[in-house]
């Protein structure tokens, strides 16, 4: 019996070793770094232990800007992308001809490279010496002056950023929601039909509760994904995000490690732990709400 007990662990050993080296050790190391004050990258030495790193990061205007940007992106893009994806999925689910074609078209952005998509957005939005960009041409048509979306005012930049993020995350959500909708048994709809249920009530009382586990899954992963945003910002505004005022928390961590002002693993660790605390709190809140609402 005891022999069998150890056999299980033996089989798990490769995976455990791998996880220990590449996940658990770095995790502990991040916590250690974040409390080492005045860490010197070259000599690998530090002056003392304390919470100075956290206080530095929390007082750094660049970090506060990144925090603000991240929160705006999360709050705008997660509900909007999920809502629009739900509408599109409902549409896709109710049409018969060309359904497969549309499903493929909507999924294409998912397999497209982020940076390539970013380039397309640049062409659409960027104001250059030769052209104001396609979007500005449309704005001009309505008699407005051109807006500089890439190097211009903060709201314009944030608009492009959110637009881009929603566009990038949507295909996956549509994929999940269309399959969730398709998995609702037809008998439920037939039963509702025989009982003379109105379409809106069918949606609100049957469809929505049935797919609610998937919606909550998308909201939770959406929050986590949006908090970890970085590459999308680089794709549109370039690598110097601090200068553009469009940095995110992950971007700040990256800059602290490798950027022009980099070489501060302690600050980076402190910032990433703060991010972890935020994501953890929000996920716990999400799970608590979802447990109350998804109950079958």
């Amino acid at each position, binding site marked *: 019996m005891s022999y069998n007990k150890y056999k299980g662990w033996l089989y798990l050993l490769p995976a455990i070793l791998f996880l220990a080296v590449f996940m658990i050790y770095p995790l502990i190391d991040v916590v250690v770094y974040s409390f080492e004050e005045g860490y010197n990258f070259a000599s690998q030495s530090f002056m003392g232990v304390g919470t100075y790193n956290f206080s530095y990061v929390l007082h750094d205007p660049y970090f506060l800007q990144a925090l603000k940007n991240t929160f705006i992106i999360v709050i705008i893009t997660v509900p909007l992308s999920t809502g629009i994806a739900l509408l599109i999925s409902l549409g896709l689910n109710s049409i018969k001809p060309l359904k497969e074609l549309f499903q493929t078209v909507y999924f294409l952005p998912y397999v497209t490279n982020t940076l390539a998509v970013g380039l397309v957005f640049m062409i659409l939005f960027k104001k250059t010496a030769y052209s104001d960009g396609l979007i500005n041409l449309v704005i001009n048509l309505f008699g407005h002056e051109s807006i500089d979306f890439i190097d211009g005012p903060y709201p314009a930049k944030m608009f492009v950023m959110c637009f881009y993020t929603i566009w990038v995350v949507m295909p996956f959500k549509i994929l999940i929601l269309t399959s969730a909708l398709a998995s609702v*048994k037809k*008998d*439920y709809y*037939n*039963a*509702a*039909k*025989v*009982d*003379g*249920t*109105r379409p809106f*009530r069918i949606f609100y*009382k*049957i469809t929505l*509760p*049935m797919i*609610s586990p998937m919606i909550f899954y998308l909201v939770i992963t959406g929050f986590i994904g949006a908090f970890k945003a970085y590459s999308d910002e680089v794709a549109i505004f370039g690598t110097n995000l601090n200068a553009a005022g469009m940095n995110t928390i992950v971007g700040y961590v990256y800059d602290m490690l490798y950027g022009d002002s980099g070489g501060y693993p302690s600050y980076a660790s402190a910032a990433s732990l703060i991010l972890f605390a935020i994501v953890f709190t929000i996920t716990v809140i999400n799970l608590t709400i979802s447990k109350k609402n998804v*109950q*079958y």
Partner: protein
Amino acid sequence: MNVTLSHLTKKFPNRNKKIKDDVTAVNDFSMEIPDGMLVALLGPSGCGKSTMLNMISGLEKPTEGKIFFGEDDVTGLSPEKRGVGLVFQNYALYPHLTVRQNILFPLENLKGKDKLSKEVMEEKAIEAAKLVQIEEYMQRKPGELSGGQQQRVAIARALVKMPGILLLDEPLSNLDARLRLQTREELRRIQRETGITTVFVTHDQEEAMSISDMIVVMKDGLFMQKGKPQEVYDVPVNLFVAKFLGTPAINVFKAFVKDKKLMINDEAVLDVNTSDRDVYAAIRPEGFIVDENGPMTCKLKRIEIMGRDTSVLSENPAFEGTVIRSIVSSEDAPDPDKDTVHFSLKPGKVHLFDIESEERIDY
């Protein structure tokens, strides 16, 4: 309410898109269901009985033909305007709603002049729950109930609006054997108490025979026979109906009629009043009498004792199958050590069918 089905035909496009021909699920089906009856639509899998039910409920539109509820032509009406209650094979209870909410659901859909007050709705729901005896589970979710209880909830939901017609699709197929017996009695009781015209679909002939007022046998979308269960069992119109009804199954022999005698394996086993021809002779298991001097000789294989009755298994070259199963009372059982067994036959339990058309021949 009585239901009239007139020349109903339903065709579906073939699932294999390469085949252009439509699949005919129901073919020129006409029938009348009298008011207040419990009717079983009986047939093997894929015979179109569920399609039939869906056409009565309005979920499927017939390709041809008309459906009347009483005097009204409802062929073009959508399901909710027909006032039917439908119980699905897998019950289709909403898993996120409680039993109470499930039963209330159809009532909450009513609008305009039909709209009910909260108290009346609650009253009706409790009434329906009491009818199917699930009132103590009102606050549970369907997932917390057994299959039989879920079935009752589904029936309560279908009955709560007091529909003119109750339709059930394979109502007992998802239940285990013991529960099935219980639930079918329950179904009978509920139908008696409400007096609602009820049609249920089944492939289980025993189920159909035991509780229904009338059974309708279908095969390949075609109407075969209808009547009281005993009538259909006693006077099957063709070989298919004879074979489909009864357990153990009827024993079919290749036989012929010569000089008013039914000949099985060149033995004159029964006097019949019909012209000379080749026939199928189908004999119910209870139609055999063990008799030393009986005209029919079979090779004795084995004897199975089932308490009150004994099942005699024997062989005969003219038999269409492997073993002839006859049921006799235990006192009459033959000596198991013998090689042969002799039978005489009960005339009412022997049915003759034309060898070509497989239609019944009265004799």
